[in-house]
Each structure stands twice: as structure tokens, then as C-alpha cells.
């Protein structure tokens, strides 16, 4: 009797072990993880909208705010992760409300991952449609601690990705730039939530290997089935400046017309879609 119990226990352990190993085998590859994260962070739905409030707090504790509405449409007509079909060009329309000096200003991007983006700026007081020459994607986005690249997504092919550890909650990915001279970091580490594939924390290390910049996801909401970061922060440990981004009125698959991302709607804001 005792023996059978032992046998049963043994077989149970064996089964558990097999199960564990099969789970281990079905664990996603690094490529799958980074693509899923890229998808969840930047490509969910055919299009999307969010109202964003940024609070930039400097070393002395002074706050500056930015408020804008962001519209985004993906060129690929699918959300499929198979063959990374979700990935491709995107168009973004950013309509500013605050501060007062940028009220009604529009920033438009045609994002080409792997190439240079096309950027336009509309200055309403002059009725001027300006083309922006900005090659460095790692410059501050509207004076915040977020870079353009943090807002619009960094091209996956620009880094080598390595799964350095896995724990109960996270896949920990180390990302090393393919072309180290093009960026200010030596590598960055992402803690990717295993369930949702959302990047929960990203740590940037400088050329001396010291941590100097941290991005944290502070709040997640599931909106229309999509896990969505609704509050995040970026802290620069060198300048002691920190920016908190809060998202509201997030929605997906609105059916945004492609024409929004043209000169017509730079000059005449598509109010219907910005509400």
C-alpha cells in the first residue's frame, strides 16, 4: 500500500516534470517575445486614439505639463503575429492643447521602421505647414524625458535581443544596439510581463554600464480587450528629471480615415476624431 502511494507520487512527479518541461518547450522564443511586446506596446488594433497628459518634473520639483490627443493608424491591415505581419509603417497625428503656446499645433509622423520618419509640424498662428528635419529619434519629445522613439517605438532590428532570465512575472530581455555609435545607451533591459507582454520596466544603461534612465508602467487597463498602459513614467537619473504620461479616452479600431494624415487635416483639425 505504502509502495503504491510512493509509486503514485513518483508518477505524479514524473507527470509534473513532463508538464513542466513541455511548458518550458512552449515558452516563446526571444523573437516572439520582443515582437509580441512591440505589438502590444505600439500596434494593437488597426488604429487607436488616446488623450495624453504629460507632467514633466525637473530637479527642482517644478512641473510643466503637455496635453495632446494622439491618433494612430497602422499600414498593415492585420494584427497577426504570424510572420510578424502586424509590423510595418504607421501614421500618427498629434494635436496639442497645452501649454497655451502650442495650443492647436499639430505634429504628424509617417513612421517607417528601419528608415527615417517623415515629420510635419503645423503652426496655426502662421497657417504654416513645416516639414521637420529630425534624424535623431533619441531627442526629447516636446521637452519631456520621453524620446520620440519611446513614443513611437524603436525599430526591433536596431537591437540584438537576448532573454537573460525568466521569473514568475517577467521575461527579462537585454537589448544591445546593433550600431552602438548611433545611440547614447550601451544596452537596455526590459521586464516584459509574461501574460500581457507589456513592458513593465525598461532600464537604460550608459556607456559606462551605469543605470541612468528608467521607464515604468504604472497602470494598465484592458480596453476593448487590449491590455493598455494608461500611466507610465520616464525618469532620467542624470538630470533628475521625470515625466509621467497619463492616457485617457483610449479607444481602438475607430475606423480612422487615412486622409487624416494629410495636409488637409493639418490645416483643419479632424475634430470629430479628436473628441
Amino acid at each position, binding site marked *: 500500500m505504502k509502495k503504491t502511494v510512493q509509486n503514485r507520487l513518483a508518477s505524479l512527479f514524473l507527470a509534473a516534470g513532463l508538464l513542466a518541461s513541455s511548458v518550458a518547450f512552449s515558452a516563446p522564443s526571444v523573437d516572439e517575445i520582443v515582437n509580441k511586446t512591440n505589438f502590444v506596446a505600439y500596434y494593437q488594433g488597426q488604429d487607436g486614439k488616446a*488623450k495624453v497628459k504629460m507632467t*514633466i518634473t*525637473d530637479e527642482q520639483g517644478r512641473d*510643466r*505639463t503637455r*496635453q495632446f490627443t494622439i491618433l494612430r493608424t497602422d499600414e498593415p491591415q492585420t494584427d497577426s503575429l504570424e510572420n510578424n505581419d502586424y509590423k510595418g509603417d504607421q501614421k500618427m497625428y498629434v494635436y496639442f492643447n*497645452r*501649454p*497655451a*503656446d502650442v*495650443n492647436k499645433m499639430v505634429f504628424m509622423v509617417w513612421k517607417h521602421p528601419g528608415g*527615417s520618419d*517623415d515629420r510635419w509640424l503645423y*503652426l496655426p*498662428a*502662421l*497657417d504654416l*505647414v513645416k*516639414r521637420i*528635419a*529630425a*534624424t535623431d529619434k533619441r531627442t*526629447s519629445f*516636446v521637452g519631456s524625458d520621453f524620446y520620440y522613439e519611446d513614443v513611437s517605438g524603436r525599430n526591433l532590428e536596431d537591437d540584438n535581443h537576448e532573454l537573460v*532570465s525568466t*521569473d*514568475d*512575472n*517577467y521575461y*527579462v530581455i537585454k537589448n544591445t544596439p546593433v550600431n552602438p555609435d548611433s545611440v547614447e545607451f550601451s544596452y537596455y*533591459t526590459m*521586464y516584459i*510581463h*509574461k*501574460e500581457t507582454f507589456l513592458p*513593465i*520596466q525598461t*532600464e537604460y544603461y550608459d556607456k559606462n554600464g551605469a543605470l541612468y534612465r528608467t521607464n515604468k*508602467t*504604472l*497602470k*494598465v*487597463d*484592458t480596453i476593448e480587450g487590449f*491590455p493598455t*498602459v*494608461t*500611466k507610465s513614467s520616464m525618469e532620467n537619473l542624470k538630470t533628475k*528629471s521625470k515625466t509621467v504620461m*497619463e*492616457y*485617457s*479616452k483610449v479607444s481602438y479600431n475607430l475606423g480612422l480615415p487615412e*486622409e487624416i494624415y494629410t*495636409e*488637409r487635416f493639418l490645416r*483643419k483639425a479632424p*475634430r470629430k476624431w*479628436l*473628441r
Partner: protein
Amino acid sequence: MLRKSALLTALIATQLAPLAQAAPPALPSGISTGSPSMPAGLGSKPTLPGGLTTQDPDSNDFSDSYDDETPLSISGFWEARGGLRTQSDSNERGTSIGETRLQLEMQKEFELFTANLTTDLIYDTVDRQRHIDLEQGKGWLDLREANIEFSPADFIDIKLGRQILTWGTGDLLFINDLFSKDWNSFFIGRDEEYLKAPSDAIKSSFFSSAVNVDLIITPHFDADRHIDGRRVSYFNPTLDAISGQNTIIKTDQPHGSEVAVRLYQTFGTYEIALYGYDGFWKSPAGFDMTSGLATFPELSVYGASLRGPLSKGIGNIEIGYYDSKDDSSGKDPLISNSEFRFLVGYEQELIKDLTISVQYYLEWLMDYDNYRNTLPPSSHERDEYRHLLTTRLTLLTLNQNLRWSLFAYYSPSDGDAYLRPKVNYKIDDNWSAEVGGNFFLGEQTHTFFGQFRHNNNLFAAVRYGF
């Protein structure tokens, strides 16, 4: 046995992944209460806590008066601006600018149209004229915008009324943009937005996949707020001297309409446009001997532009033919000849937060022999080709809150230059302050920038935006 393997795994993990030594972040709200430091089996399955999925995503909505849903949005700024000439000018005041201004921008959306109203209330200590001249922008009120926008069909936008209009690819150089400019504001140190004077016009825009068309009709000719000696001294050819308030230019404004058209399309990321204009020279370009008034002779302009990515920046090219219809042979010495104008520009972000742009611009006087042959004796002869180079440097520092900029014009053919340095600091979300200057250099008094040599000025301003 189990403990041993766990230890082994941990050991391997630490060996392979020194990164894992750093404490992993706690999960944010909305994901799980499970923390990675929790023992296995407890926090291993971070699922969304119940109730979160039903949470209203709008709960952290921070919409305010700027929100589009409010029936009426009001924004604007108040500013005070003062400036001094850095040299004496016998024909102008020492104070180049001294004014305070409240701009109120109102926008109201109705079901079928949007109404825009932007008014500037001004107290000007330099130009004490109190009665309002909306055309010339004089007096205590300047109406910047008063229009309604509507779309009678999916592919048509109409903007009717007073509006600011801009097109073309030049940076502070205009070939096909023949909408009114305010050169006085530009030279005395007002904000750059005031270089654009409003037009009272009907703008109709038609959109299609093949081509987009803008048609702008200005029923009554809107002249530039041109240099007339009131605020800025200039070279007066009849006196052969720099003049100002002693000889204010009086004009005879034509009674006619203006039509401007633009056809444009984007191919890939290259923007191509064709332009046409029929109206009048926007600043005086003629003189009526009998009345002694400066005139705005008839003008038609035909042009084209191309703008798009080039190397690591943005390149643009624009051409225009100015057909001075009242003097098509170029034999009338009192009316400007026809011109061919050309510009090519390039802008690039040199290093992080430092942008540089350069432009080359050409004015080629047509019928140059006729011009020379009919030129009254002892007049200053214009060159056949006026070459102009410009550069703009913009440096952003202190988290982009401190902006250093320099715009410089230099003409090797005229031997003159114009420098516009400026430093602007955003104190906080509402307050900003700036100092800047306008400096004119030239060997001769009759060249385009050289004539403004007595108008060099320094200015400072504070602004509160709301």
C-alpha cells in the same frame, strides 16, 4: 531533491544572467498583485484582478476648457514688448517698439460649421493712432481672424472671412506666397506670427486622390502692411536719401480682386505644388507722377515647388515667374519689371537639438536692358541678379525650454545683410520671456537691407499664455 534542483536553477540563473540580480520591478496596478519576489506558486499567474476590466477607462480623464467638446474654447495670451533703436534715427523715434497686447482666440463649433475669431487688443506707445484701420493693422484693435469653416461636401472645405494664409516652401522667403505680409512687425521685433497679415478671403479647397486644389479669392485687394516710413525708415529714391516720418509713403490702392490657386499632391513623401496668382504687387512697385502716390501695379505669378527628404534632412526648391503686366516690356521706369525668382533650401538636425538650415534665393530682373535704358539719370541701378543666402540656426537647451535662434540674410550682390538673433525662455507653462534684435548691415543706403541701417534695434518681451 526538489530544493536542490531549485537551488541549482537559481545558481544557473545567476551565473547566466547577472542582470537578474537586480530586483525585478513590481507589477503596475491593473496587472496583478503578484510581485516577483513572492514565493513560487503564489504570484506565478498574474491575472487581472476582478473589477479592473469593468473599470471605466475614462475615469482618469483630464479634459478641460481646451477639450473639443466644450462649446466655446477661449485661449490666447497677454504680452508686453519694448525695444530701442541701437543708433539714432533722425526720422524715427528712439523707441522702436513699446506695446502691450491681449490676444483672444475664440473657437465655437456648430453642427454645420466652425466659427473662429482672433482679436488683438493693443496699447501702442509708439504709434499713437487710436482709430482702427483693420486693413493696415493700426489702432487699438487688430482682427487676426474672423471666419467660418464648413464642408459642403466630403471633398470640399470652405473657409470664409478674415484669415491668415500661407503656402510655399521658403523659410522667411516667399515666392508663390502672395498673401499679405506685415514687414513693419517683422523688422521691429514682434513675434514671427505677425509677419503674416490677415486676408479677407474665400478659401475653397477641393481634395481628390489625383490632385488637391486650393482656390483663394480676395474680393478686395489686400496690400502688405509695407514699409511706409511710419515705423521703419527706408530709402526714398526721389529724395535720394533715407527717409522716415518726414516722408511717409502715400499709396493709391487698386480697386480689384486677387485670385490665388494652388494645385498640390504628395508623391511618396515628396510634396509637389503648382501655383498661380493674379492680382497686384503686394508692396508698392510703381509710382504715379501726376498724383505723387505709390502704386500697386498689376501682377501675375506662375510657379512651382518641390519639397521632400534629402540626404539626412529636408530639401526644397521653388520657382516663380513674376509677370509685371503693367510694364511687360520693362520700359516703364516707374513700374517694376517682371522677375524670375528661384530658391533652394536644405535643413538638417546637425546634432541633438541643434538644427541648421540654409537657403539660396535669386531675383532675376527681366528685360534688364530696357530697365537700364529707361532708368532716370542719377538713379541707383539695380543688379540684373540679386543673390541672397540665408541661414537659420536653432539650438534648444534646458529641456527645450531655452531656445537660441539666429536667422541671417546675406546678399553678396547687394553687399548687405540682416540678422535676427533671439533667445526665448519658457519660464513655466504660462510665462515666457524673450530678448532679440534686428540688425541691418550694408555698404550702400539704397539696397534692400542696407536702407534699414537706422532701424537696428533690441527688444525684450514677456508673455502670459492661457
